[in-house]
């Protein structure tokens, strides 16, 4: 692997640049700052899963004292758009309106009231009279696909839906080689179908937007978003106003995980402000967050693997059916990623087919969620690999070794299947999976404990393992830019459109700048995510920030370094090429030094004056995957069916970890989210399409008592195309827990769980089935 250079600031577990403000409770979140005269906006949700609004009478509500503005489909722009905050043109269909005379899920937006207080707004919602014509709802994937199913998007003006008459949002079908020939040539074939549930991101801060007019009459949206620039563009489109009249500011936000890659509330807040001239506040309650924000796409995915007796894969077939809910946000791309982020991992298979559809239902709306389809795809893929290992009599680790992609290799899937369209060819330039497997197996005690069915009372222990990958941004689509300008004390302003959701991206991007400019981290002053002040960045999704935004920052810093050396060159009497930066100074070959402060003072005040500053952009040519080996030890209670994860080991290759503490934190958070997804988290939905458990009491996300002994090992590589050798690490961790725990359960009690979450009921039922059989 290429040599890792010596770093000074990169590779250190620096404190987060925003940490002190957060730990002292400074008013840094959207809801923490209010102007006088603010209106409170509440939303009326549909009580029906599928209905047409015959009439809506808001006169009583409007007459209530303190009610200032009521919005419905009758007085708002009808522009079709997507709420998915993706690059333009978005690969999601334009199937949503701000308000509409049709509702498509329980909680779908019917009206909004802006009032002097929240209590008045809530009271006014109750005074809105709506006459509905109920339509037959579509409440499952199978329901959506049957002949004669009700058509959920029967409107004329939607665009980009694959086959609206059949409730199909998107369709993907790609082929490499000849899978049937591959299966014919296989000695062993296994096939498995797995289903994943409706699950929620559950950020501790629900969606919230605050809007106001600045002194020049421009609309300012302070919003809890992962995509400030997409939010600006989509709000302008939806409201029919110029982009230049909108400014989006993302302050600190309380977690996102994909749900804040949606433009959900900005249009309502903005329109209230434009109509009334007053500041407006819209925040979802926890219940609304569960019912009417976004979820992970539930999927049914079938995987068929064919291998020779040598354990080398000959063919892989994956068929995915994805439930996108009532609107098609991310429908195509999440579906495609179920294949594109999984299948290249096993590039030894010459014959690969991926096909599938995303369908509409009258159920909660799915969207982007950390892992983005890959999580759903890895469940059956890694389950099938475990089955294949057993059938072949090969250790599961060894089976992965014989099939996983390596440095210098490629997969035709990279080129065939991209972000809802063709992908981009790439050769793997960094991959430490071998060491990840070795270290992980050793830490979990694979050789000693696997297959031993250790008993502890009624509990049986088992070990499982998987390997997974993700990407680093969307190649040739994502774009990030960074601006750096110098101040006369030798500090620098770093202006980035990149969006820190709590991930620490402000910090790691500052570390990259500090490294190039040879200054301590506190000399880099970060301003991020303000569409007026910072250059464009697509935002925080697709594991793009470290790799894509990081490269933009590195390039901007290198340009600034070049300007600094030019200025110093005249003073130090040496060519710019011979100079270097060290310890906040320019150093000449003879050892003469000029401080950065003096360089900037000269540029500002003394000679050939100019602002030392530069902007640089990055559109990545490829998307190097982070690789992860997962190992889990579980205990399965044979009397109750309860599964406890005792020990989880994650050995991950993310290239150089710009900040190891923050990189570990990304892994730990993603894995624990994944364990919740595997064991306890499930949105329960009634036979009429209503979410039955819309609270953090009834929807169980892991707490401090639920977390196993969790070991994350950063197995460093050097990614030559990445900033400072880095790859991204934001998502990959969440792909591991479901199949790893499923495989460990099988090792313990010999049953395959193919439906998440692995609740005691499901585990017991599966055990009974095996006993009966």
């Amino acid at each position, binding site marked *: 692997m290429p040599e890792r250079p010596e770093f000074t600031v990169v590779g250190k577990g620096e404190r*987060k640049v925003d940490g002190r403000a957060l730990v002292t409770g400074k008013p840094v979140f959207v809801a923490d700052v209010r102007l006088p005269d603010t209106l409170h906006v509440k939303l009326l949700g549909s009580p029906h899963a599928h209905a047409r609004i015959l009439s809506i009478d808001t006169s009583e509500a409007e007459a209530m004292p303190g009610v200032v503005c009521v919005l419905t489909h009758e007085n708002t722009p009808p522009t079709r758009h997507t709420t998915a905050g993706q690059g333009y043109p978005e690969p999601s269909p334009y199937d949503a309106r701000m308000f509409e005379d049709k509702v498509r899920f329980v909680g779908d937006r019917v009206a909004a009231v802006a009032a002097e207080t929240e209590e008045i707004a809530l009271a006014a919602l109750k005074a809105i009279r709506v006459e509905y014509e109920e339509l037959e709802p579509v409440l499952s994937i199978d329901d959506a696909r049957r002949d004669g199913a009700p058509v959920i998007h029967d409107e004329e003006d939607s665009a980009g839906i694959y086959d609206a008459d059949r409730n199909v949002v998107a369709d993907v079908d790609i082929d490499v080689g000849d899978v049937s020939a591959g299966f014919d040539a296989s000695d062993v074939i296994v096939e498995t179908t797995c289903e994943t549930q409706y699950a929620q991101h559950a950020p501790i801060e629900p969606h919230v937007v605050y809007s106001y007019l600045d002194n020049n009459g421009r609309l300012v949206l302070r919003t809890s978003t992962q995509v400030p620039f997409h939010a600006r563009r989509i709000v302008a489109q939806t409201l029919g106003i110029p982009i230049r009249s909108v400014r989006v500011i993302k302050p600190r936000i309380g977690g996102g995980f994909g749900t804040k890659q949606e433009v959900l509330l900005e249009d309502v807040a903005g329109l209230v402000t434009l109509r009334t001239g007053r500041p407006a506040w819209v925040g979802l309650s926890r219940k609304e967050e569960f019912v009417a924000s976004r979820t992970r796409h539930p999927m049914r995915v079938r995987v068929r693997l064919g291998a020779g007796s040598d354990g080398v894969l000959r063919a892989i077939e994956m068929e995915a059916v994805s439930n996108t809910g009532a609107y098609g946000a991310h429908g195509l791309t999440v579906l495609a990623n179920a294949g594109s982020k999984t299948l290249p991992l096993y590039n030894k298979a010459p014959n690969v087919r991926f096909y599938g559809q995303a369908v509409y239902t009258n159920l909660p709306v799915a969207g982007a969620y950390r892992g983005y389809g890959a999580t759903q795809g890895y469940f059956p893929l890694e389950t099938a690999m475990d089955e294949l290992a057993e059938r072949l009599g090969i250790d599961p680790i060894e089976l992965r070794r014989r099939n996983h992609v390596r440095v210098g290799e490629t997969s035709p899937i990279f080129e065939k299947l991209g972000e809802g369209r063709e992908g981009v060819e790439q050769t793997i330039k960094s991959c430490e999976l071998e060491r990840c497997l070795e270290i992980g197996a050793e830490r979990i005690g694979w050789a000693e404990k696997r297959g031993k069915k250790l008993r502890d009372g009624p509990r049986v222990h088992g070990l499982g393992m998987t390997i997974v990958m993700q990407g680093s941004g969307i190649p040739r689509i994502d774009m990030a830019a960074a601006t750096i300008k110098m101040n006369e004390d030798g500090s620098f302003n770093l202006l980035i459109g990149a969006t820190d959701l709590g991930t620490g991206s402000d910090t790691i991007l500052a570390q990259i700048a500090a490294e190039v400019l040879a200054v301590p981290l506190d000399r880099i002053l970060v301003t991020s995510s303000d569409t007026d002040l910072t250059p464009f960045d697509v935002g925080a999704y697709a594991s793009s920030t470290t790799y894509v935004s990081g490269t933009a920052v590195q390039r901007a810093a290198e340009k600034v370094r070049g300007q600094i050396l030019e200025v110093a060159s005249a003073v130090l009497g040496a060519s710019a090429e011979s100079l270097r930066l060290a310890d906040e100074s320019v150093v000449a070959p003879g050892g003469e030094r000029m401080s950065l402060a003096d360089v900037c003072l000269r540029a500002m005040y003394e000679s050939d004056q100019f602002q030392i500053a530069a902007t640089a952009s990055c559109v990545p040519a490829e998307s190097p995957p982070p690789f992860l080996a997962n190992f889990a030890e579980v205990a399965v209670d044979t009397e109750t069916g309860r599964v406890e994860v005792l020990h989880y080991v994650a050995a991950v290759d993310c290239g150089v970890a710009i900040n190891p503490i923050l990189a570990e*934190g990304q*892994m730990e958070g993603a894995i624990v989210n994944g364990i919740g997804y595997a064991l306890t988290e499930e949105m329960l939905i009634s036979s009429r399409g209503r979410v039955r458990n819309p609270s*953090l009491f009834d929807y169980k996300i892991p*707490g401090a008592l639920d977390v196993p002994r969790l070991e994350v090992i950063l197995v460093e590589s050097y990614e030559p195309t990445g900033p400072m050798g880095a790859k991204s690490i934001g998502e990959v961790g969440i792909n591991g827990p479901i199949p790893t725990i499923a495989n460990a359960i099988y090792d313990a009690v010999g049953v395959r769980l193919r439906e998440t979450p692995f609740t005691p009921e499901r585990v017991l039922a599966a055990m009974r089935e095996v006993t009966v059989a």
Partner: protein
Amino acid sequence: MTITLTINGRRTTATIEPGERLSDLLRREGFMGVKIGCRAGDCGACAVLLDGRAVNSCLVFAAKADGAEVVTVEGLEREGRLHPVQEAFLDEGGIQCGYCTPGMVISAVDLLSRNPDPTEGEIRRALSGNLCRCTGYVKQIRAVQRAAAAMKGGGTDA
């Protein structure tokens, strides 16, 4: 009605609505470190010390705080110096988005005031009412261990 309480060491008189929550009163008084995540006592983001014990302030009537001493995360700093728990959260990487952090820190301060040498299990139990979706708790648990060690060694008035 009017109540008098001490918030972060300052006596405050406040007019409250019947049924008003302590969390809403505190935010109205400008203590934005009190976060709202569920208004149902499930997430712990609004935790404050009420007469020295951590409570979810969304589940406490403001009226109940009449005559009480309330400490929010803003009140932990002493003469510009952070509380050892705050320092430890910064050093260990116990903060990601920071929305759960104030409540988490309050729970940890409460624990260490009662139990200066907690086991890992006791720390987990003390933090179990504070949900965090970012960190996976690993570094938060470690931060409390670090703070406990620092407080034993250094001596603070927490």
